């Protein structure tokens, strides 16, 4: 589904953020992308969705390669949920915010309405549709941010720290939501307990390179490996040990 080969990216100041990464994701896979701060997770996402241009390498969504002339189609097939929902929600009403994507897809009003309602219902937040986004709680904003992407029917969704800034109840709701989503998911997170629960595979990024890639129970149970990547065992496992 997602095919990345020899991808490299440097910041304008010359600092190498991503170095020769190759990665394949199958359809419907749920993969956690973990790594210490500054490991290159956000840059990696920006490259996949075409916000930043790679210095070298290739990214393909099925057979579609990510380049300037294909960006429109790429963004119809790949959605991204930003770390800070305030960056993602910019309209005056929740309904309009969720409808922003489908409207840009030039769907008819009835189709837009259908998609918005379906997304809000799926996430159990239909009651928020007439509210102002900036008046909502962090958890509600996060769910709406997910709805804004979901209603565009993407084949792949990139989640940037979906459980950050949330209270336990809101975090639990996001986890349940992620588990229910059937499309391919790439989730950048520091929340290793969430990764353990939601994902089948883990990729560790370290200093812009892939440090480890494997089944979630193999990687996240390996304390030595995690420590080498400046991470630690998921809290749930620490208690067990």
């Amino acid at each position, binding site marked *: 589904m997602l095919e990345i080969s020899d991808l490299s990216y440097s910041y304008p100041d010359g600092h190498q953020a991503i170095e020769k990464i190759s990665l394949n994701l199958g359809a419907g896979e749920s993969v956690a992308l973990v790594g210490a701060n500054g490991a290159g997770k956000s840059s990696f996402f*920006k490259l996949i*969705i075409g*916000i930043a241009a790679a210095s070298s390498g290739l990214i393909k969504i099925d057979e579609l390669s990510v380049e300037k002339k294909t960006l*429109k189609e790429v*963004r*119809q097939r790949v*959605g*991204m949920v*930003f770390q*800070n929902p*305030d*960056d*993602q929600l*910019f309209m*005056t*009403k929740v309904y309009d915010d969720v409808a*922003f*994507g489908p*409207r*840009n*897809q*030039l769907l008819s009003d009835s189709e837009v309405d259908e998609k918005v309602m379906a997304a809000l219902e799926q996430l159990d937040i239909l009651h928020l549709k007439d509210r*102002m986004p*900036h008046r909502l709680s962090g958890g509600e904003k996060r769910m709406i941010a997910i709805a*804004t*992407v979901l209603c*565009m029917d993407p084949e792949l969704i990139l989640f940037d720290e979906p459980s950050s800034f949330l209270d336990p109840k809101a975090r639990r709701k996001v986890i349940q939501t992620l588990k229910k989503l059937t499309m391919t998911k790439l989730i950048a997170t520091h929340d290793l307990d969430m990764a353990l629960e939601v994902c089948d595979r883990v990729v560790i990024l370290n200093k812009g390179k892939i440090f480890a890639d494997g089944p979630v129970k193999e990687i996240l149970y390996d304390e030595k490996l995690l420590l080498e990547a400046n991470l630690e065992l998921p809290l749930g496992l620490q208690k067990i040990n």
Partner: protein
Amino acid sequence: MTGISESMSTINSLEELADKKTIIHQIHPRVKLILTLLYIVLVISYKPYDITGLTFYAFYPIILMVLGEIPFMPLFKRLLIALPFSFFAGLSNIFFDRQAAFFIGSLPITFGLISFFSIMLKTIFTVMAVLILIATTSMPKIAYQLLSFKLPQMIVEQIMLTYRYISVLLQEVSSMYTAYILRSPGAKGIKMQDMGVFVGQLLLRSFDRAENIYMAMKCRGYDGKFLYAKPQPMIKSDWMILLMTAGLLFLMRFFDLGLFIGNFVR
């Protein structure tokens, strides 16, 4: 920081009014935009001492507000922001142009005073016309029409994003101000010595936020063309409203209605 929160709600509330379904809201966006521009041009074209003719132009905002069910207070609050600029611009006329135009009893009414009122009326009418346009037409629809008038996309995008980013700027001010006040016990505001750093940081943070928001918009298919806001073609009633209202506005501008009504009453 309730003031900033209220400002954010106020900014949004005007846009929310555009969701109504009144007669005015249902008029084609192009008609409303053309009439608003025509109204502004005609109001501005009045000579500084011609107040009589100008006062008839009050009919336009009043009728639109009544038919469009637009509450007066939200518009008035925004109008108050614009008024001080024209107030101080017009004030100098009172001091420098002291020649008497006529007397009310023994009280001389100077040309300066008349031109002052003329400036104030022009400001009130033109700002109200723009506010009513925003309260009856959504911003993307206005943007689409501006693009269809061949206004450069870059300018339209600047207008739209500036409008969108006002609330981003306010959010940043709100959080920075709170952080500042919590570490400045007793301070009633930002001290002058800290103002430079505060404004500089505000600018940098706002740039970052604005860039992130722009990326989020791009990720969801935004291309600055507002094609989704393309309205249905204009229908017969739209053409009639356009022609009749434009005709009336021109009539009021080039036909002395004050004199006509005066003769009629006599």
